[in-house]
């Protein structure tokens, strides 16, 4: 098949895919993430229980299934529930506004236990007295007092312990208020979860195993159906349940007709449960009768049966010994009443129906995005995307003219494919995902730049347009694949290891890189080859390759010591900034809450602070926000110590100033913050290792070390700049840092690829001369790719809104640092290191001897030996080529065209066609013939003092 026919077929495929993409885009719905449409995201961490002592995959899978059933019962459209990390489960609920209800419904462990009440209630001496109703106890006021009392009890270890199957540590602040309602397995765990401020004056109280601190039951709902808040009154009981949630079946929400149609939950017992229920109620009835004073009212003298759900007493019905002397036959089941609205009763019935979770789920992060802010973020993301596309297209058009038009067209095709894939897969589009899409515009354009520069180089070397395209592609494809594979690997590492929000970015980045490879390598090539015979591409000017590019004579290696020093100073300043000012870690790492609330009444920062002081948040960071979309009076409150279940701040704000809309709440628990930091560190280490291995495989290990040093340099400089300007470090920053690893490598690979190519071409040159030559050849494309990658990032920075601006800031710093380090760190380190090799040391000694003790910056021909030669290609065929070597792919006509394009006679065609000339191209060049390669002429020997300025004396004495 001829090249033109193959190109046309590829174009046909491209147009077919374009048509398909348009169809997909027109018919399929875009799945928007929570950050773009509003909703609630909850992240839970699985904790072991006595029944499930290890958090293994099976337990997580079972929990995931149960959570999915709960979410389905909650009636949320298109929820997403998935495992995240080792022990975490991420629940995304688009469109949900009532975060409290979602938390109650979804994350509740739903551990139901039924107790013989009098047999288990403990008195102040930790003793039970089954003969006395309720052991003569009333609930203890204040959790601190209850826990202090419980801490004095001896452990009651037995096989029946359930809710209190291990010691639990409670944490209180100086004012004896619980820091959180969460308990910990050890004091060390508890301390680990607190920040420095919380640790000041914190009190840790351990309740022994078998002693359960149970919250007293809530009151009944008022006339409006509003359930009173959970009371701060607590009972201490021996954790010795008679039945558990596994002993019941068919829970339903019903109404108690005898009690004014109050909502209740009814259930039936399993066979085992029925027997246990009857035995227990019989024992309660008998005990009640035995201990009742003569003539006593059985209602007041009867003993009780208690139902507890998730450490909260739901109800304590009495067992009337006169009506049920033999206990209650559980054949008709039982009911749970008290403190329910219809909704909460329905929820409980559903939870009981689905069953208890095998793991204790701790809510470690909660994000609530208002729909207004979501829409605003979507608009900003789209504006940044369109802006990014326009600036990249403009750059390509100005810089590459006709080639730029083709690149812009393929960029549009790329964007179309990408959007269609987003809808087809479907990929839930998030704000970081949009950032990934915008960044890949730069990646896609970079691939075109590398190819176009190669084509221009071929044209300037005297090739025809058609040959230049084929040859340029052949030479550029390795560089593009290397650079894109590295970005793909980094995206893969990010996807596997990074925090939840970053995964969307990694996924879109990965997909984008893969699609851009297709459009840049196949589609652009097909368009170019199809047009190569037309007038459009006939002129060199149209391709931006009119005049021969003047070789840049800058002594990169000679100047590197000064740039090295500059880097050292920048790093030192960065180190001082990190040490002195520190990095401003956001709540993703430090834990805490950020609440953006639209208020009904205008409020100053001081007024908000005064409103928050009574609830213990007088020291919160407060700022007013100018966001007309959200409302006139918007405040943002950042607090350190607020656990994910706590709504104190929003409640206080609403009470004082009223609410003008849903707040945006982001709460990160301490353990989640730690896991984010840990996963970020793992992701960076894994990325560096993978990059090192890849570079070693594709180049050699001595190329990998400078790459890693340069990357380390980029990361640390970015960190230093963050410390200097006090920019907040978030999970987006980590994603940006990892993206920098991929982007920074693009430049380095371009340079190293050319160094590798030039090494066999320059068999007598010093390594510094090879690097100087390589740098001078690729510096334009290296700078162009960086600039092109920077353009969409700038668009993100300018139009992307607050979240994307943070992300773009890190990318801008990283991209600039990456470009700098590719040229002035990675290459000089490689150069200095390689120069120590015997072969290069020998060359250097010879060159110094020939040039009066200095090594010219650029290789010069001496004694009739050219500075560079065409490399011999391994496996090349020997002998003359007088016909197409591959008649199936190259027609005779094309072969003749190629011969004409190369400007040689048929007899010279063999020499021009490649490495098959006896004696090689070196011989051909010596004979004064062009060798068909882009090998430049030997560099003239510097003669004047001015010319000597471009030489350098290597600083190392050898």
């Amino acid at each position: 098949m001829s090249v033109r026919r193959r190109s046309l077929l590829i174009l046909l495929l491209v147009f077919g895919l374009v048509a398909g993409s348009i169809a997909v885009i027109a018919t399929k719905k875009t799945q928007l993430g929570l950050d773009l449409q509003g909703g609630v995201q909850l992240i839970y961490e699985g904790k072991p229980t006595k029944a499930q002592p290890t958090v293994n995959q099976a337990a997580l899978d079972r929990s995931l299934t149960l959570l999915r059933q709960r979410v389905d019962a909650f009636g949320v459209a298109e929820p997403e529930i998935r495992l995240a990390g080792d022990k975490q489960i991420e629940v995304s609920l688009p469109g949900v506004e009532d975060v409290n209800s979602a938390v109650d419904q979804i994350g509740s462990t739903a551990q139901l236990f039924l107790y013989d009440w009098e047999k288990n209630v403990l008195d102040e001496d930790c003793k039970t007295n089954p003969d006395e109703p309720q052991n003569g106890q009333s609930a203890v006021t204040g959790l601190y007092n209850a826990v202090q009392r419980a801490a004095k009890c001896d452990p009651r270890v037995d096989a029946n312990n359930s809710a209190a199957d291990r010691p639990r540590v409670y944490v209180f602040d100086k004012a004896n208020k619980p820091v959180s309602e969460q308990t910990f397995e050890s004091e060390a765990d508890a301390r680990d979860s607190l920040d420095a401020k919380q640790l000041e004056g914190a009190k840790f109280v351990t309740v022994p195993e078998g002693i359960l601190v149970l919250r007293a039951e809530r009151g009944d709902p008022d006339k409006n159906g509003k359930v009173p808040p959970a009371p701060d009154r607590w009972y201490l009981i021996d954790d010795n349940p008679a039945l558990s949630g596994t002993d019941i079946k068919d829970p339903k929400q019903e109404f108690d007709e005898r009690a004014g149609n109050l909502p209740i939950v009814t259930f039936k017992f399993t066979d085992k449960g029925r027997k246990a229920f009857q035995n227990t109620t019989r024992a309660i009835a008998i005990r009640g009768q035995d201990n009742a004073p003569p003539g006593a009212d059985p209602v007041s003298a009867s003993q009780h049966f208690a139902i507890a759900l998730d450490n909260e007493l739901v109800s304590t019905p009495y067992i009337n010994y006169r009506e049920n002397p033999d206990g209650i036959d559980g054949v008709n089941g039982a009911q749970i009443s008290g403190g329910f609205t219809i909704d909460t009763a329905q929820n409980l019935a559903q939870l009981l129906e689905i069953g208890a979770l095998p793991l204790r789920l701790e809510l470690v992060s909660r994000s609530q995005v208002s729909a207004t802010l979501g829409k605003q973020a979507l608009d900003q993301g789209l504006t940044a995307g369109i802006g990014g596309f326009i600036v990249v297209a403009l750059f390509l058009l100005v810089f590459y003219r006709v080639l730029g038009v083709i690149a812009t067209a393929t960029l549009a095709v790329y964007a179309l494919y990408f959007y269609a894939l987003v809808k087809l897969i479907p990929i839930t589009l998030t704000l970081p995902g949009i950032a990934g899409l915008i960044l890949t515009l730069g990646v896609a354009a970079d691939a075109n730049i590398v190819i176009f520069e190669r084509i221009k180089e071929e044209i300037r070397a005297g090739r025809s347009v058609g040959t230049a395209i084929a040859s340029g592609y052949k030479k550029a494809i390795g560089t593009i694949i290397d650079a894109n594979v590295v970005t793909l690997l980094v995206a893969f590492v990010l996807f596997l290891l990074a925090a939840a929000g970053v995964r969307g970015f990694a996924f879109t980045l990965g997909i984008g890189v893969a699609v851009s490879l297709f459009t840049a390598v196949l589609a652009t090539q097909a368009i170019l080859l199809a047009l190569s015979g037309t007038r459009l591409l006939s002129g060199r000017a149209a391709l931006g390759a009119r005049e021969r590019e003047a070789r840049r004579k800058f002594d990169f290696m000679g100047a590197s010591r000064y740039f090295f020093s500059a880097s050292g100073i920048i790093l030192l300043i960065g180190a001082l900034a990190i040490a002195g000012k520190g990095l401003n870690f956001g709540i993703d790492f430090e834990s805490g809450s950020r609440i953006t609330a639209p208020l009904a009444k205008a409020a100053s920062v001081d007024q908000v602070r005064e409103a928050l002081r009574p609830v213990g948040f007088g020291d919160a960071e407060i700022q007013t926000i100018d966001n007309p979309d959200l409302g006139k009076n918007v405040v943002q409150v950042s607090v350190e110590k607020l656990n994910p279940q706590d709504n104190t701040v929003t409640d206080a704000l609403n009470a004082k100033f009223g609410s003008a809309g849903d707040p945006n709440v982001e709460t990160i628990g301490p353990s989640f913050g730690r896991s984010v930091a840990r996963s970020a560190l793992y992701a960076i280490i894994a990325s560096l290792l993978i990059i090192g291995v890849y570079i070693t495989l594709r180049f050699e290990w001595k190329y990998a070390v400078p790459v890693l040093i340069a990357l380390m340099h980029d990361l640390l400089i970015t960190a230093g700049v963050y410390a200097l300007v006090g920019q907040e470090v978030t999970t987006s920053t980590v994603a940006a840092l990892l993206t920098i690893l991929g982007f920074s490598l693009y430049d380095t690979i371009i340079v190293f690829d050319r160094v590798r190519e030039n090494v066999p071409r320059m068999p007598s040159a010093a390594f510094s001369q090879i690097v100087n030559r390589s740098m001078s050849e690729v510096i334009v494309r290296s700078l162009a790719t960086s600039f092109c990658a920077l353009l969409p990032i700038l668009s993100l920075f300018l139009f992307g809104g607050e979240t994307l601006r943070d992300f773009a800031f890190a990318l801008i710093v990283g991209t600039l640092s990456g470009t700098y380090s590719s040229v002035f760190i990675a290459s000089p380190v490689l150069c200095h290191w390689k120069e120590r090799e015997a072969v290069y040391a020998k060359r250097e000694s010879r060159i110094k001897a020939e040039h009066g003790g200095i090594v010219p910056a650029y290789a010069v021909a001496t004694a009739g030996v050219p500075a560079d030669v065409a490399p011999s290609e391994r496996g090349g065929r020997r002998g003359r080529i007088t016909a197409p070597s591959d008649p199936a792919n190259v027609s005779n006509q094309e072969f003749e065209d190629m011969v004409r394009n190369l400007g040689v006679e048929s007899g010279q065609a063999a020499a021009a066609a490649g490495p098959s000339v006896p004696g090689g191209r070196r011989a051909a060049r010596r004979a004064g013939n062009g060798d068909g390669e882009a090998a430049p002429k030997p560099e003239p020997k510097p003669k004047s003092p001015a010319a000597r300025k471009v030489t350098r004396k290597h600083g190392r004495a050898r």
Partner: protein
Amino acid sequence: MGIVVWVMTGLALWHFTVFLPDRFWGGIVGAFAGAVLGSAIIGLAISGLDVPGTDDTTLLTCLEAIPGALIGMGAVYFEGIRREGAARA
């Protein structure tokens, strides 16, 4: 955070080795390893085998890295000279 500051300071000092004759064992990469490892190890030793956390990292932490980096690079340098001498002999 302390370890980041130590390594960063060591790395910063390493940049100035380009002004020295390249007699480091392992060349410029050997000097890099000496600077980074030296700053981290000596920094750790100075702070009592405890890496300062975010709140404990101060300007002094930065200074703690300097002797380590110099010792590390010096050790690599003199090892390079020793090896050169041995090779010549």
